[in-house]
């Protein structure tokens, strides 16, 4: 594992009077001293809540009553809860739709903006700009554009002689509206990663392909797509993690509705923990999210060599 190699200076190299063990000890103390402010914060506000969440998921707490030990029953409830499975299904659908579009659009834009083009920098700036817009602001803007009764999109559809779409009262259009905004927010990220990937490809390869008579499309299919493979894998994992955690947009735009048709795991966990106030059950859903996240983090970590290539 390349990331674990020790880059610290050699302990032998200090003056002759101090012994090697002393130096080691000092360095150990200094090391722990340097990491301790961050470590203390992490222990209190991350590790402790994780352990506490596991405990809570085995209890039943309604409102501010005293918690009651209920064993696995929150998890049993989870398995038989149709809304949980619907939220899981929505999360998977959201992920399966957003990720391929993100990747394809990101690569397409990267190829476009890697080619000779006037004012390339300005174009790139515009595509990346949504990344600094908050999920809440994006959701609010989208809500107005997708507004069912007199939003812009439906007005345009009507003006074109088409029938308006029920963005808020039907499940599928509601999901589509959230997906569109999520892609808008994220496509710039995919583009910049792919741009970095493209720029590491030697132009001589394309020259050779051209001499061999490969068409533009063939060059793209056989060369570009293949050579940005490491970037694609990195982006795949990052996009899946981000899609699994989409919260702000759904909270603002649909609140999980209509019905539960845009409810996802993170919004369902929040709803149980803080709106219905079934905290034990909310914690149990949280543990499911935790485990899924750890699995993807592990996959990403295992492939961090490819990630280094991307950078």
């Amino acid at each position, binding site marked *: 594992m390349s990331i674990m190699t020790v880059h610290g200076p050699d302990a032998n190299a200090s003056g002759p009077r101090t012994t090697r063990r002393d130096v080691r000890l000092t360095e150990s103390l200094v090391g*722990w001293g340097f990491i301790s402010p961050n470590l203390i914060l992490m222990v209190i506000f991350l590790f402790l809540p*994780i352990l506490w969440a596991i405990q809570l998921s085995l209890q039943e707490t309604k409102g501010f009553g005293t918690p009651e030990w209920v064993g696995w029953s929150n998890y049993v409830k989870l398995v038989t809860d149709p809304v949980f499975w619907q939220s899981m299904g929505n999360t998977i659908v959201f992920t399966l739709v957003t990720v391929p579009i993100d990747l394809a659009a990101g690569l397409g834009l990267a190829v476009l903006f890697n080619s000779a083009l006037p004012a390339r920098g300005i174009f790139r700036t515009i595509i990346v700009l949504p990344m600094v817009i908050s999920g809440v602001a994006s959701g609010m803007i989208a809500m107005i554009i997708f507004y069912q009764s007199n939003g812009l999109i439906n007005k345009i559809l009507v003006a074109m002689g088409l029938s308006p779409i029920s963005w808020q009262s039907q499940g599928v259009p509601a999901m589509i509206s959230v997906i569109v905004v999520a892609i808008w927010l994220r496509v710039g990220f995919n583009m910049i990663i792919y741009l970095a990937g493209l720029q590491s490809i030697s132009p001589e390869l394309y020259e050779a392909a051209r001499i061999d008579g490969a068409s533009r499309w063939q060059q793209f299919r056989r060369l570009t797509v293949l050579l940005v493979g490491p970037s694609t894998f990195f982006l795949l994992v*990052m996009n899946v993690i981000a899609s699994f955690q989409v919260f702000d947009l759904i909270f603002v735009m649909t609140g999980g509705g209509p019905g539960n048709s845009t409810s996802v795991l993170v919004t369902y966990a929040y709803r149980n923990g803080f709106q219905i106030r079934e905290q034990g059950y909310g914690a149990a859903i949280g543990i499911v999210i935790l485990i899924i996240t750890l699995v993807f983090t592990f996959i990403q970590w295992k492939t961090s060599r490819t990630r280094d290539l991307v950078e």
Partner: protein
Amino acid sequence: MTKTSAPALGVATVADRQHTATALTRRARASRRDRSQSWHRNRSNEARKGIAWRTLIAVIVSLIVIFPLYWMCVVAFSPRGEVFEPGLHLWPSTFTFENFRNVLDQYPVVTWFGNSVVIGVFVTVLTVTVNLLAGYAFAQLRFRGRNTVFLLGLATMMIPVQAIMVAQFKLVVGVGIFGTYWGVILPAAAAAFGIFLARQFFIGIPGEIIEAARIDGAGHIRIFLQVVLPLCKPLLAVLTLLTLLGSWNDFAWPLTALKNNDLFTLPIGMLYLKNQTAPDYNSIMALALISVLPMVILFLIFQRYFVQGFTRTGIR
């Protein structure tokens, strides 16, 4: 680098150079292979056509991407209710500041803005400080247990707050910081992503520099402050901007940890406006504009650092 012609990415200059190089070899090869003038003319015509097409696509895509932000401005500067009346209103009939006056009169927007600034500054200063210290230790110091702690941080880095927010809520209530600035600041400062960014950077600092300072008799803290820190201004810029952006746009946790209207940050304030019985969307867009403008300005000035940060830390 001038602002208008600056490439969007630090790496772009390399690509530009590559392009010139390719163009040169292409031209050289072409003249060797075929000396006829017409061939040249066709080829450059074709190239020009290609550029025209690509520019057209680029313009269309950019317009689509920028449109929602344009629409936010249109709604914010239009007379109240106009965009929701029948007919397409693609720009304000009269340009008005009425919505900004309304939102500032009816809600404590200045307080919310101040809260976002205060929380953003505290989170940033605290996070960047502890991340720099930890990142340096993980990169340049040897100590027992280093790898274990590092892996633990790496493993928990991606966990979303929703996974543990019930427990975190109880914790914040338990230690008595619920409904205060600290209830938002401290959990936010526990984020680990900056450690890895810092570590990556510090690994690049040659050990000889640190060794030389040590032989000169400098202690660890002095080396860190006087030798290492002056070398890592780009890292400082990236970390500061990304942390500030994350805090400024943060929603799920402040939503849970802040209950008092006077302590709301801008995103929570926007939600508060939306949850009114008859939400005034013109005011909401005015507030949205107020809330996104600082980050858009920072992005336009420090784009290079933002992009470096994004590529290394993923989707925020």
